[in-house]
């Protein structure tokens, strides 16, 4: 809290200093002033850095949050609507990724042979920046919104796949032996022994995936445009509205934190103490 107050203080002081240091020179003739104006040096007008002060920021935040759902056409939508679009894309992409990555990771983790077979592909595909898939996605899918979802899918799939496979393959031998001596059916073993044993590792993978997906969606929406917080951010930059840009940055940070906290909570539910 103290750090926050200091930060606001420094911000305030730095914006004050720059906005008051130029006073209009009074010893110029009318012609000289006009000449200066033509040269683009607007005397008499206070020169600022253009960087908003904390008070302007607070006003902008208040204004945006007081009416988050307005919709004045494609270039002017409330922040909640933009966030909704982004979260929807992340949600769909992430869900698709879990539907594929977790069962596949399960199978790969259970079989050392499949693990070896899939490993080279995973190792090659994993380090590719999700945005590098964008042109391929745009060309094949031919729909910008779906391409955004695809990019989220492709970036969330790897951490989940790798963590699930790792979690499943490192389930304690003892627990598997217990299941074997009890002649537990494969399905029951998968759901009652392996899944709970690997759940913390799987959830870690999902948490990492969600973090990456939230990073990527902003960039993807900047590229694709149309809707979403990434588009909002870039649009406000084009409007040279720094308060809105800063506001968008703040919102992205807060939402990212909330998503991470949600997954931390899920992790807590499935974690067991040995």
């Amino acid at each position, binding site marked *: 809290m103290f750090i926050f107050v200091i930060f606001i203080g420094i911000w305030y002081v730095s914006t004050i200093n720059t906005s008051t240091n130029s006073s209009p020179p009074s010893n110029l003739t009318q012609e000289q002033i006009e000449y200066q104006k033509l040269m683009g040096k607007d005397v008499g007008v206070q020169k600022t850095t253009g960087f908003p002060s904390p008070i302007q920021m607070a006003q902008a935040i208040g204004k945006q949050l007081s009416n988050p759902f307005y919709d004045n056409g494609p270039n002017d939508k409330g922040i909640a609507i933009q966030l909704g679009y982004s979260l929807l894309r992340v949600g769909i992409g992430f869900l698709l990724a879990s539907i594929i990555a977790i069962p596949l990771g399960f199978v790969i983790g259970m079989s050392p042979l499949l693990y070896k077979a899939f490993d080279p592909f995973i190792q090659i595909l994993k380090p590719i920046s999700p945005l590098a898939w964008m042109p391929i996605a745009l060309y094949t899918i031919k729909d910008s919104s779906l391409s955004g979802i695809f990019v989220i899918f492709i970036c969330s799939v790897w951490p989940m796949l790798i963590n699930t496979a790792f979690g499943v393959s490192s389930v*304690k031998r*003892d*627990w598997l*032996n*217990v299941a*074997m*001596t*009890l*002649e*537990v059916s494969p399905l*029951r073993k998968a759901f*009652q*022994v392996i899944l*709970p*044993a690997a*759940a913390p590792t799987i959830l870690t993978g999902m948490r990492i995936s969600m973090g990456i997906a939230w990073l990527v969606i902003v960039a993807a929406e900047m590229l694709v445009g149309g809707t979403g917080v990434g588009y909002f951010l870039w649009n406000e930059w084009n409007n040279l509205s720094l308060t809105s840009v800063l506001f968008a940055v703040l919102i992205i940070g807060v939402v990212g934190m909330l998503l991470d906290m949600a997954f931390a909570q899920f992790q807590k539910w*499935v974690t*067991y*103490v*040995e």
Partner: protein
Amino acid sequence: MWNESPDRVSAAEICSHENMSKTAPAQEAPFVQVQSLCKYYVLDKPIFADVNFTINKGEFVCIIGHSGCGKTTILNVLAGLDTASEGYVIMDGREVKGPSLERGVVFQSHALMPWFTVRQNIAFAVKSRWPKWSSSQINTHVEKFVSMVGLSHSIEKKPSELSGGMKQRVGIARAFSIQPKMLLLDEPFGALDALTRGTIQEELIGIVRDTHQTVFMITHDVDEAILLADKIVLMKNATQVDGSYTAGGVAEILSNTLPKSRKRAELHHLDGYYELRNHIVDFLIGIKH
């Protein structure tokens, strides 16, 4: 199986060497027959070879030997979790081919599922044994076995909230709850302190005697073996002297003739206890050199 010799006998008789393949009673086949079992990881250098012994119904057999002599491997072969390189195990007229509900295993590290409570851990085993039981049937059965090891008050606790001894009790209750034909215990008390170990040993004796359970147990503790076992199998390690390799295996099989009602506290007052104990300790020290 108990009265092979009179209650009070000389040391020599207590330590009577048995070669089971020769002296096994001919009239009826023993419950478990281990025949010429051999395990090697490197060909021609088996860890143990030609292991033969039998376990009768209701008999408590302990196996003692130094680390690395293959005790756990033999137990895993009996459990069906491991396979022998040669030889076979016959239980109740059938060869042991894989894990089965007929053999309950208590693992050294208790192996309870930490995400289940005590009740769920045992219910998991009971449900595997009798998949068609209703939940109330399962609950009564679970509660019966939990109270058998005296943990009724902790039935809803997670294993992490229990002490080491309590966890091992749950492990024992789980193995008993499926009412197996044979119980296999892999150093169940190895990680416990002496006091707890004593209490659980007494409990185990009580339960085994009440249920006439057939038990095969690995131990490092000579007193534990003397207290619990009807028959003690001594194993020797494989040795390599001047390039000549000798496989490990069963060195001796002793039958314990101390009175069956022996108690831990008065064990050392019994006639023949020291002879038996010294014999085993001498053996364990002897093979080291």
